């Protein structure tokens, strides 16, 4: 498991990690990919899309179910991971690394209500399907 101290988490099982001053990567957590099972495809937004914090930005579909994706932060989509379109299994294999989904240009701080790794782990354990 990678070092997740720089990651923050939502209660809808997305993570966000700052990249430099003004950008952040977003993906789904290891807990989420494990619950979903094999990812078959992702519906992701176009570059240039503006997102509000908490807004639906796409969906992930697995053998088991379809699940909506919610943005942890407010910002503009500046990149979409092309690798996961052709190899969706990356989301299962490396959800916090190569399985990132979108890169967002953020203004200001990350929302205070995001969970750190320890708090998210407690939340995820209690949240069982």
């Amino acid at each position, binding site marked *: 498991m990678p070092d997740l101290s720089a990651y923050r988490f939502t209660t809808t099982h997305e993570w966000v990690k700052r990249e430099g001053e003004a950008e952040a990567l977003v993906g789904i957590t290891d807990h989420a990919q494990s619950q979903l*099972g*094999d990812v*078959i*495809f992702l*519906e992701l937004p176009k570059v240039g899309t503006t997102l509000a914090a908490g807004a639906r930005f796409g969906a992930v579909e697995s*053998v088991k179910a*379809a699940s909506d994706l919610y943005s942890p932060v407010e910002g503009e989509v500046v990149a979409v991971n092309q690798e996961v379109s052709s190899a969706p*299994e990356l989301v*299962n294999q490396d959800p916090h690394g190569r399985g990132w989904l979108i890169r967002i240009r953020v203004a200001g701080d990350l929302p205070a209500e995001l969970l750190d790794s320890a708090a998210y782990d407690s939340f995820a354990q209690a949240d069982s399907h």
Partner: protein
Amino acid sequence: MSEGAKQVPLDRAHRAQGGQMVPFAGYSMPLHYGSIRGEHLAVRERAGLFDVSHMGEVNVTGRGALGFLQELVTNDVSRLGPGRALYTVMCRPDGGVVDDLLVYQLEDGYLCVINAARHDVDLDWMRQHLSGHDAEIEDVSAETVLLAVQGPAAKEIVQSLSPGAELESIRYYHHRPGEVGGVESRISRTGYTGEDGFELYARAADADSLWSELLEAGVPHGLVPAGLGARDTLRLEAGFRLYGQDIDEAHDPLSAGLGWVVKPAKGAFLGREALARAALSPPQGFVGLKLGPREIPRHGHPIFQESRRVGEVTSGSFGFTLGAGLAMGYVDPGSSSPGTELRIQLRADPPQWAVAPVVALPFYKRPGS
């Protein structure tokens, strides 16, 4: 583990292999050992090892065994001989399907292999109809394990553990007793994946031994353990029905496209009259629909022809070999011919539709078959 879920003899072995255990038909079973996609592709390209010991095995013996089975099932059991097996359904008098099953003719008597989810119902049903027949039934499910080795490398793997036997001579739907890795087994050339392979019936006490022998023999061939998730995506590609999804007591086998296992010429059997009426005017048709790579149909999704609802999806998932969403389901007979363009509602809010023509099943046929 689910409270109250029964364990199969290989429960510990599955957990040791990293099996993700889920409740299924009252048992704790491995859904996968890491990736459904990986296991599915391994079966088509190399080989997979499935534990399906949750299924039920019932011996039928006695002078009246054939007569009893002929009344019970729709297919013609008298066409078997020792060493052969057939696929059939058993029906209620109204034509509804009680279960689908394999019937094996053994050296002495018969073996019926039934779905785990229907175990108790089937046993009750069989007992109910036993009177008047000089036959006995014996439920040997608890003492029997069933391991399936499936894929192009399956024969080589099982052969390497059975040096005395010449497995190529066991044709499809044939079987014989033999030793596999020193374990006494019934070796059956059957399966539920659409690939070549063998199903091995053995004593529960020998389960761990047989399982580890097969895994070890499979190493040079790329054999992997495979769970129920891959079993489902594989059988869907192969067009095999699943009891409880595609077939049930509310549907007759003709509507399910299983007319080929119904042999009214053999004589009387449960449901014969109802099925004769259904044959004249089938209430429904059974269709296969192949969608796009980003469209996954699921059980219960409604099927429309233009603006008219004509049916619904009974089995829906993703075919990893075909790279497409796949559906099977019932529709009005007039909407069931191959080529008929139908629409599946994948989502109600917001509405999302997939358009697909009816295709003939199976979706996937292994090369050379």
